[in-house]
């Protein structure tokens, strides 16, 4: 089996982002980048699969600037066998362009399985996995929390609105991985050292201009404290009025 895991670097989720002076992008000054948490879970799934299935190769692929190497090394230290860094400084938001670059690289690898995190925690768009699958012409199973190989097919447990679906797919196929009880491992020092020796292929790529542009970026409104409108049944009338006129939710 060959598994390709697509990973994206995102601003550290523990940090508060600030909007830049252009009001269209985030301030990059001291932003630390991490592997998007869902992608990291996807890498963990791939490595666990590999540990159970000898002969499996796990390849991580990313599209990003040169210093994404650091995030790739983290994936290699977790246990991926090698990495491909599609290097571009294009700060693209266009999922189609990203997916095109990824699928071009992935198709050369001829993987049996392609994994994605369900979404990247920066843009939250959940599009790239689906578009890559379409471009590769392979089935795409989304919101997967666990999967296994059974009789040459992939059996996946997919989380849906109020339950689970058990899906079966021919190989090759692609899965988007949802958070579950599978936590990404903490890399041991030995594996950190080994990661340095692993192959990381750097391939410069040209990303076309985005099909759309960001006009404005805003942070969510600051949460303001709650308001007590009164006590007991007497307050209901005022509450209804506020919900209707101020909050405009009813």
């Amino acid at each position, binding site marked *: 089996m060959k598994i390709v895991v697509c990973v994206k670097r995102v601003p550290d989720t523990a940090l508060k982002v600030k909007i830049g002076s252009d009001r269209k992008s985030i301030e990059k000054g001291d932003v630390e980048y991490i592997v998007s948490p869902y992608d990291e879970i996807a890498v963990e799934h791939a490595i666990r699969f590999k540990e159970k299935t000898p002969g499996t190769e796990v390849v991580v692929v990313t599209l990003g600037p040169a210093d994404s190497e*650091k995030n790739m090394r983290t994936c290699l230290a977790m246990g991926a066998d090698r990495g491909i860094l599609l290097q571009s400084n294009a700060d693209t938001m266009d999922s189609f362009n990203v997916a095109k670059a990824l699928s071009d690289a992935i198709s050369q690898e001829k993987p049996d399985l392609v994994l994605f995190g369900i979404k990247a925690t920066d843009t939250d768009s959940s599009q790239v996995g689906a578009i890559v699958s379409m471009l590769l012409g392979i089935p795409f199973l989304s919101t997967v929390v666990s999967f296994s190989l059974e009789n040459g097919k992939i059996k996946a447990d997919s989380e849906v609105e109020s339950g689970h679906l058990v899906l079966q797919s021919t190989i090759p196929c692609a899965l988007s991985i949802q958070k579950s009880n599978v936590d990404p491992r903490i890399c041991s*020092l*030995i594996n950190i*050292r080994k990661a340095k020796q692993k192959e990381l292929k750097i391939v410069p790529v040209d990303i076309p201009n985005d099909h759309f542009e960001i006009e404005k970026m805003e942070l969510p409104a600051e949460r303001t404290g709650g308001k007590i409108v009164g006590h007991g049944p007497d307050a209901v009338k005022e509450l209804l009025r506020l919900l209707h006129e101020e909050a405009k939710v009813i």
Partner: protein
Amino acid sequence: MQYTFYKIFYFPKTLKIEKEGIMEKELLLPINSLTEEERMLQEMARKFAQTQIKPKVQKMDEESEIAPEIVSELFQLGLMGIEIPEQYGGSGMNFTSNIIAIEEIAAVDPSVAVVADVQNTLVNNAVIRYGTEQQKQKFLPLLASEKIGAYSLSESSSGSDAFGLATQAREESDHFVLNGQKLWVTNGGEADIFLVFATIDKSKGYRGITSFIVEKSMPGFSVGKREKKLGIRASSTCELILEDVCVPKENILGERGKGYKIAIETLNEGRIGIGGQMIGLARGALNHAIAYAKDRKQFGKSISEFQAIQFSLAQMATELEAARLMVYNAARLKDAKMPFIKEAAMAKYFSSIIAEKVASKSIEIFGGYGFTKEYPVEKYYRDAKVGQIYEGTTNMQLMTIAKILLEN
């Protein structure tokens, strides 16, 4: 002390600025810059501390016991054999890596940090440096993978005056017979491998001191009482009792009569580890103080809006920064094989004072809540105190610094 004139080459990397393919400038990076691997180690140790140690800190403190799963994870992650060469099953990193790991762990729990500190900077360090090939092959793989080590120099009547120790080693045909009592042994409760310092001839003074690798299973060896302590309670501090313990001659570490040298040299380095523990501790306390200050409201606003609180935080951060640079500088000097003894003593002296101060101020920022065990800062304060005592008291550090200053 000529080294200040050397080109400073101990930085992990210089920053090369190129213009059209021609090197224009080569800049030195700051003292605390890390190599790629060191950064990954830092991230790993931080994740481990935050996700696995943090939930257990309070319980381990209350029960005065380190959780066994924390110990096994320390081994699993390679944090107990950081500098042990890969051929002996270790991680083969540099000295500074010890400091990085200790700092990250201490930010969450200084007692867990000292367990790893003693293992790495004292025990492993001594065996790597002075062990025979046979000793290295026998003990290093164990120390890297499953066995805790302890370092036993102090006794009830010899602390600062360490070489006034009384534990005796009597030579017999192919072994030594050890008799005596050791005190204050960190990791004593969990260790299997003990570096015990004893004298083979009291009349020779420090020249009689010899270092032995004593295994817990040796008949006559036992671990005595366990101290009840103010701080770093999850780290055991024990008495050792040696009653006619036969130690084969092949377990002498280094040369006979040269144990004093091993003690001095390992402690010179170990001190930087304590510095790492202290700056980690201070950072942990400061971070709690910052978060609390932003959250706590009095007089209708967050207390972080009061300049008095802001200045307090700013001062704490500044002093911590100074201590941190000193600790990292000492560690980098040691890795570069440059003179570091004065800098190590300064780093330990200064960082242990800063740690106590920052932890104390953090309690003040928390107000009454800081004084209770409901909140984490009182523990940092308790844990800080020992930094001024072990691996040489503050006075001993000042003596070392002054001696070097006045030497020439």
